[in-house]
């Protein structure tokens, strides 16, 4: 299955695109997505700057609610990654 991951804040260092397409095993949840993202980060030069991204980020569903690690992802679902925030 594939999901679309919309990038915000520091996660934009992952790609020049606003939305990343990520291949996941069928029936994946957010916990699996964290592991896959962690592998992507460890393969790139980004490791130094983004090593805590997977641990500290929340994820939003399409209706802007925080979803937990057990949330079952659907094929082609759009998810937002929400790194630690700091406006104002």
């Amino acid at each position, binding site marked *: 299955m594939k999901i679309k991951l919309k990038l915000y804040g520091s996660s934009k260092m992952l790609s020049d695109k606003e939305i990343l397409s990520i291949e996941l095993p069928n029936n994946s949840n957010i916990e699996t997505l964290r592991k896959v993202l962690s592998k992507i980060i460890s393969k790139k030069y980004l490791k130094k700057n983004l090593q805590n991204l997977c641990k500290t980020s929340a994820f939003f569903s399409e209706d802007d609610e925080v979803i937990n690690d057990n949330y079952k992802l659907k094929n082609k679902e759009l998810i937002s990654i*929400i790194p*630690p925030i*700091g406006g104002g």
Partner: protein
Amino acid sequence: MTLHTAIVNAEEDKISLEKAKEFIISKKNGAESIFIGRVRNENSGKRVTAVTYDAHDQAVIKSFQSICADAKTKFNKSSSIFLEHAKGYIPVGEISILIAVSSGHRDEAFKICRYILEEIKHKSPIWKKEHYTEGNEEWLPGHSLRPKEEIK
């Protein structure tokens, strides 16, 4: 209408103090409190030239409305609130956030202003990337929205 919230995209518009003052003025409210946040030229010993703000627009507006509604309930239901936050590339000296409040009395006006600012820092999905004089840039650390029980 006693509440205005917006994300202002720097490529399209600027945050306006005059607009905020006009919005909050009311004969019922004798106190006005205005907080203006501007991009400053230094942070942790680094010389800053600008900040790029990123935002999850839809979630930010939801959080702004919820925070302002809470502030009204907590301090004064008749208060008027104007809240705008910038998005995009903001050079040093320009406004990044403006909170304007009018209320019956000064105490509530000050408290509402402060409450909104502190809540935004912990609830609204907004991010800052600083640009430095040396040409490098850095996303700043912040407050995690991940459920606490999941962080080991």
